[in-house]
C-alpha cells in the first residue's frame, strides 16, 4: 500500500461534521450534575466519568485512524504526539501539546490551554474533589489501549481548580505486541 501522508488535525477537523459546542458542553455538564446527584460520592463520579470516557475512546479510535491516515504508531512517543496534536484537534477543535517526557520515554504530559467541556463551568465548594474533565482521561486511556498500549492517565493540572492549564499525565505501563488478525491458531 502506498504510504499516505498523515493529515493535520486542522484539516480533519475542517472536514468532519460539526455541531455547536454549546450543546456538547451543556450536555456534558448536565450529565456530571446528574451523576453527582445519583452517585452521591465525588470519587464514584470521577470513576464513572473515566469509565464513560474509556468506552468512548475505544470506539473513537477507529474513526481517528480512518480519518487521520495515521498508520499504526509503534512508538509511544509518536503516538502521544499524534493523540495530542491530531486527536484532540479533530474531535474537540482544540490542539494540545506534549511535554515533560521522562528519561526512558514512557511518561509524558498532554497539556491543553483551552477546552470546550469547561465553558461556563464553576465548581461549587462541595465538589472540590471532582475531576470535572475526567472523561478525557478515560478517552485517552481507552484509545491507547486499542492500539495495544496500556496506560495510566492522571490529572496534574486543572484550570477549574485554579491552575493555568489542563495537564494529563500519561504513563505507559505495558505495550502489548501487535497481533496480526490472521494469526489465530494458538
Amino acid at each position, binding site marked *: 500500500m502506498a504510504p499516505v501522508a498523515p493529515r493535520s488535525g486542522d484539516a480533519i*477537523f475542517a472536514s*468532519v*461534521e*460539526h*455541531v*455547536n*459546542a*454549546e*450543546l*456538547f458542553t*451543556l*450536555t*456534558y*455538564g*448536565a*450529565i456530571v*450534575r*446528574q451523576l453527582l446527584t*445519583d*452517585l452521591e460520592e465525588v470519587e464514584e463520579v470521577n470513576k*464513572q466519568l473515566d*469509565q*464513560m470516557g474509556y*468506552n*468512548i475512546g475505544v*470506539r*473513537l479510535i477507529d*474513526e481517528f485512524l480512518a480519518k487521520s491516515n495515521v498508520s499504526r504508531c509503534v512508538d509511544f512517543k509518536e503516538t502521544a504526539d499524534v493523540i495530542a496534536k491530531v486527536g484532540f484537534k*479533530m*474531535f*474537540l*477543535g482544540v490542539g494540545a501539546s506534549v511535554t515533560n517526557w521522562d528519561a526512558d520515554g514512557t511518561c509524558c504530559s498532554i497539556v491543553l490551554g483551552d477546552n*470546550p467541556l469547561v*465553558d461556563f463551568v464553576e465548581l461549587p465548594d462541595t465538589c472540590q474533589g471532582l475531576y470535572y474533565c475526567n*472523561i478525557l482521561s478515560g478517552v485517552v486511556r481507552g484509545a491507547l489501549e486499542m492500539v495495544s498500549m496500556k496506560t495510566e492517565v492522571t490529572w496534574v493540572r486543572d484550570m477549574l481548580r485554579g491552575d493555568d492549564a489542563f495537564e494529563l499525565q500519561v504513563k505507559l505501563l505495558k505495550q502489548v505486541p501487535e497481533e496480526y488478525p490472521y494469526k489465530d491458531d494458538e
Partner: protein
Amino acid sequence: MGREVSESCIDGLLTEMVSSYCNRFYSNTPELAARRIEAIGYQVGHQLSERYTMERPRFTDHLEAIKFICKDFWSELFKKQIDNLKTNHRGTFVLQDNKFRWLSRMSGDPSVENGTQDPESKAAQAMSMYLYFPCGIIRGALSNLGIPCAVSADISSLPACSFVIRIKV
C-alpha cells in the same frame, strides 16, 4: 460564529450516557434510567432556551414559542428545521422531523449487540431510552419559556420521529 466540536463527540457522549444509565446504574429499573436521561435533557433544554432567545422579543402565545422550537431552536441543534407541525388547537402539538439526526447516526450502538433478547427488540428499547433525552430538551426549553408540558416521542415511521407536546393547563 460560535465554537464547534466534531459531531462524533456528541454522538459518543449521548450513546455512552444512555448505556451507562440503562446498563450500569439502573439496569433493573428502566423507568428510573428513563427519568434520569430525561432530567439531563431537561437541564440542557432549559439552558439552551435561555441562550437562544437572547435578543429576541418575548413570545406572545404558546404557538409562537412552539414555532421557535421548530425553527430557530431545532436549527441550532440539528442544522435543519422541524418538517411538519400539527396541532389540535387544544394544547397538543406534534412536531415531526423526517430524518431525526440522532437516530440516523446511532446504528452502531454496542449495547445492542451483546444481548440475549432478540436484537431487534433490544435495539428498539435502546432507541426509546435514547429519545428521552431530546424529549427532556424540548420540555426544559418550553418550561423555561413559561409553558409547562409533557413530551413524548413516536418512532412508528422511522427514520421520521415525532415529538408530541401536551401543554398542561
